[in-house]
Structures are given as structure tokens and as C-alpha cells.
């Protein structure tokens, strides 16, 4: 039997979050948490409110009620960039690569939040500026190799396949050394072989200490999560291990269709 849990001491804590668009209540007092070091899944049928919740957590949408805490800090009203600087990095349902930049440049810019050179220093190629460029190059090369992108590093990211773009976005997030990596439907557009590879990749990143929140309706992928929350019509209706979730009557009715 699954149950809703209070998550006051978790890494990411979403408490009583509600949001409406006009008369449509998309989220109704959502409560859930992501423990540090976990690979947590958030699933739900289309229209459940997953994307809205994701946008609220990442700062693209302020909630009308409720709070979002990250690493003990209330970030409900903070800007996207502030959350990023705290280590909360997200990807998008439709991969948002920098299309005119090469894959290498996409990965290089992943380091941005850890660097500090200013515009004037960049113009005169200060020693800090040059050192940063070397660091960006090195990190991009390492990530390119790790994510299997070495062959396309010099191609504009907008011209590689959709699956590759997904990997570029993920690798870019990895380069930014996230503390919490939030992935929005990372398997959409991938075939089953690629989904299998993505599963392995996520497990590897998680083993290395990156906390991951995975939003997906792809059961093949979500199986990788150690804990899953089920969102349905704006409420969390179940939380627990995937095996438990699959046995939950409400989940079976609302989502799994069995």
C-alpha cells in the first residue's frame, strides 16, 4: 500500500502548492519531496499538471499558493537564475539547445554559473578569461566523450538529430554540475534502444551523487526511479517504490488504465 509522506527534511520540498489558469485548477495543494541523492520520478497522465509543477519548481511560474524549498531555503519567489546558482538545473520537454552554437559550445556554456569573468576582462582577454575558456573547453571535451557526442562536437546543435539534441541538453546540464537535475520528459522522441541507454546514463549520474527528479509518462524510463510520485488532476495520489505504485488501485484506475 502506498501513502503520502510529509517531506520536511528533504532536499527539494514542495508544500501545499496550488495553481489555477482562469477557472481551471491545475494544481491543488501538491505536497511532495525529493530526498538528497535520490532518483525520484514524477508521473501522471497528460493534463495532470506535471509541466506546471515543473515550471513552478524551476522558477518559470510563481505559484498562487504554497512553497518550494530547496536545500532548506525557501525559493518560492526567487528567479530562475538564482535557483540555478543554487544548483537546481532543468531540461525541457522539447530540447532547448542553442541551435546556432556548435555542440561543443553548447557544452562549454554549461559551465557558465561557475565562472565569473566580466565583459571588460573578456574583451582584453585577461588571464582569468583565458583560464576560463580553457576550463570550458576541457569540460566540454570530457562531457562530449562521456555522453557519446564526440563525433558531432563541431556541428551546430540545431542540426543534429532530436535524440542527440536531448543528449546535448543533458550533457550541458551535467557540465553545470547540478545538485538537483530536473528532467522533463527526457525520453520523448527517443526509440527504445536510446531509452535504455538513457536509463543507464541516469543511473550512472545518480550513483555519482547527482539528485535527479524525472518527469515522464514513459514507464520504461520511470522504472529507473527509486521513488515515484503520481500526480493526477493536480494532486499527488500516491508515492512509493515503482512496484508499490503499480499495485495502487487509484493509480491503476487513473493512470495505468488497468
Amino acid at each position, binding site marked *: 500500500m502506498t501513502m503520502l509522506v510529509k517531506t520536511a527534511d528533504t532536499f527539494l520540498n514542495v508544500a501545499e502548492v496550488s495553481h489555477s489558469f482562469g477557472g481551471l485548477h491545475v494544481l491543488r495543494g501538491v505536497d511532495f519531496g525529493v530526498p538528497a541523492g535520490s532518483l525520484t520520478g514524477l508521473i501522471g497522465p497528460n493534463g495532470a499538471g506535471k509541466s506546471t509543477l515543473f515550471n513552478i519548481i524551476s522558477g518559470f511560474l510563481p505559484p498562487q499558493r504554497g512553497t518550494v524549498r530547496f536545500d532548506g531555503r525557501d525559493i518560492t519567489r526567487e528567479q530562475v537564475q538564482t535557483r540555478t546558482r543554487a544548483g537546481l538545473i532543468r531540461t525541457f520537454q522539447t530540447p532547448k539547445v542553442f541551435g546556432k552554437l556548435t555542440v561543443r559550445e553548447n557544452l562549454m556554456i554549461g559551465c557558465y554559473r561557475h565562472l565569473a569573468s566580466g565583459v571588460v576582462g573578456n574583451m582584453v*582577454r585577461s588571464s582569468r578569461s583565458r583560464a576560463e575558456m580553457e576550463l570550458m573547453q576541457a569540460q566540454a571535451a570530457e562531457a562530449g566523450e562521456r555522453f557519446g557526442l564526440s563525433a558531432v562536437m563541431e556541428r551546430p546543435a540545431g542540426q543534429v538529430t532530436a535524440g542527440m539534441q536531448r543528449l546535448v541538453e543533458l550533457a550541458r546540464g551535467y557540465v553545470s554540475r547540478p545538485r538537483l537535475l530536473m528532467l522533463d520528459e527526457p525520453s520523448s522522441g527517443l526509440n527504445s534502444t536510446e531509452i535504455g541507454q538513457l536509463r543507464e546514463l541516469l543511473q550512472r549520474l545518480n550513483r555519482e551523487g547527482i539528485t535527479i527528479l524525472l518527469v515522464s509518462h514513459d514507464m520504461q524510463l520511470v522504472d529507473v526511479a527509486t521513488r515515484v510520485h503520481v500526480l493526477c488532476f493536480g494532486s499527488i495520489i500516491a508515492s512509493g517504490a515503482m512496484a508499490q505504485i503499480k499495485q495502487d488501485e487509484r493509480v491503476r484506475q487513473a493512470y495505468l488504465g488497468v
Partner: protein
Amino acid sequence: MSRSRRALVWGIPFLVWAVLPFVATRHVVDLLVFAGLYSIAGLGVAFLLGQCGIVSLAQSVFYGIGAYCTAWFCLHKGLPSPVGVAAGIALSTGIAALVGWPILRLSGYFLALATLALGIIGQVLFLEWDWITGGTLGIGGIPRIAPFGFAFDTPLRFYFLVWPIALLLLVLHHNLLHSRNGLALRAMRDSPEAAAVLGMDIHKLKVQMFVLSAALGSVAGSLFAHYVTFVSVDSFAIDRAISFLLLAVLGGVYTVWGPVLGALFITVLPQWLSRLGDIHAFVFAAALIAAVILLPEGFSGAIRNWWRARKAK
């Protein structure tokens, strides 16, 4: 590229640049000086448009501020040229930061209109505040730049002042483009949401670029004042801002050297076409339209694409 080939690619344009003013007429050299001045101001506009997607029609204001500061400090106060240039940069960048902070929250047409409003306000103030600017009568007798007694008082001499400054500024912008913040600018142009997720403060970066662009406009204005030794409101009207935008678009906004080509086009070509008589304005307009339609990335974009295609073969 081999060393000898690289030497050819850089050496030939350098030789042409160095020899040209000695073989060209004084009038042509004068036009080339203006092309250098416009390259500097246009670089700011092109950088804003190409890297940040900001259409600026306010560059004439900063161009004017640079010119009037130079006139005021060097003529009325008798201070050396660097003081006038520095004052122009300080005032322009201050105004750009103050005005840019709110208006750069806008985007697209609304932002373009806001910069147009700034350009118009500047034009009106230059006219109305005649106790500083001299209004329509202008200010004459601005001293030449004369470091260590060597006066840049002819088109030929000024040519060898303005173009090295333009080149230095091009190199600085090239460096910027290939740095952390340059990558960030190009990234936020492609996908602002993804840029924000990586921790980029898009608004702050835009304001910084607007301030930088204003500084370039001001430097160009100061040099202009020293060159022509006379400034009046007619030189800083909104049509000047349109010229800067035009040269940026024509030359290409995705390379730092595009504005140089654009500036040469709008300064040299009309004069060259004037030998056609009354029809020259029509021919120039037709050339403008053809260039914009046929070369959507400007001259530099077309050259770059041709070069890449050639390398790919």
C-alpha cells in the same frame, strides 16, 4: 590554413589599407575617415542586434553626447582630448545604464520603439539646450587631436588615427564574442529560457551590451567632433541613427567586421554613384534593396558562408 596563406589573407587587406590613402584623392580619404567613424558607432549597433536581438535607434544620441562633450571640455574648458572622450563615455554609459535598465525589459518592436523614442528625445534636447549645444548654429572651432604637438589635422593623418582605433575596438569585440560572456550572448539569442536555466542574467547582460554600445557611439562622436571641428544638431538627428542601423544590417550583424563593410558601402558608394547624375539616389536605393533581399546576413555573412562552403569542399 597554412602560414603563407594566412599572411596573404591578412597581408593584402593591410597593404591596401596602408597604401590607399596615398593614392586616393583627398575627398576619398575624407570618406574613408567617415567610414572609420561610422564603423565604430555601427559596431555597437551591430553587436546589439546580432548578439542580443536589440534594434537600437538611439545610437545618434550617444554619438551626439560624445561630440558635445568633446566640444564642451576641449573648446570651452580647454582640457585635453582624452578628457572630452572620457567625459562622453561616462555620460553616455551612465545614460545608457539608467535608460537601458527599464527599457531592456521590453523586446521586439516595443524595444525598438523605445530606443527610437530615446533617439527623438535626444535630438530635441540637442536642439533645445542650445546653451550647451549651440542649437542649430552649432559649435565651431573644436581643437584637433594633437598629442605631443602632432596634429591630426588632415584627412590623411586622421585616417591613420581612426582606423587603428576602429581595429582595436573590433579586436576587443572579437575577444568578447569568443569568451564566457560572448558565448552567453549567443546562447541567449538562441534560447532565452535555456540560457536562464544555466544561470545567465539575461537582462543584466543586455544592459551591459547596451552600455558598451553607447560607449562606442560616444567614442565615434568624440572623434567626429575632433575631425570636423564643428558640431551641430543636424549631425545627430534620427536619420544618423537609421544610418548606423542600416550599415549594421548591410554589413552583417553576426560578425564583428560586418559594420566596416556596411560603413564603406554607405559612405563611399553614394559618392561614387553621384557621377551618374540625378539618377544616383535611385540607383543607391535600388542597391540597398537588392543587398538586403539577396544578402539577408549582410555582406560579411555572405562572405563567411562562401568561405565555409569553400572550406567544406
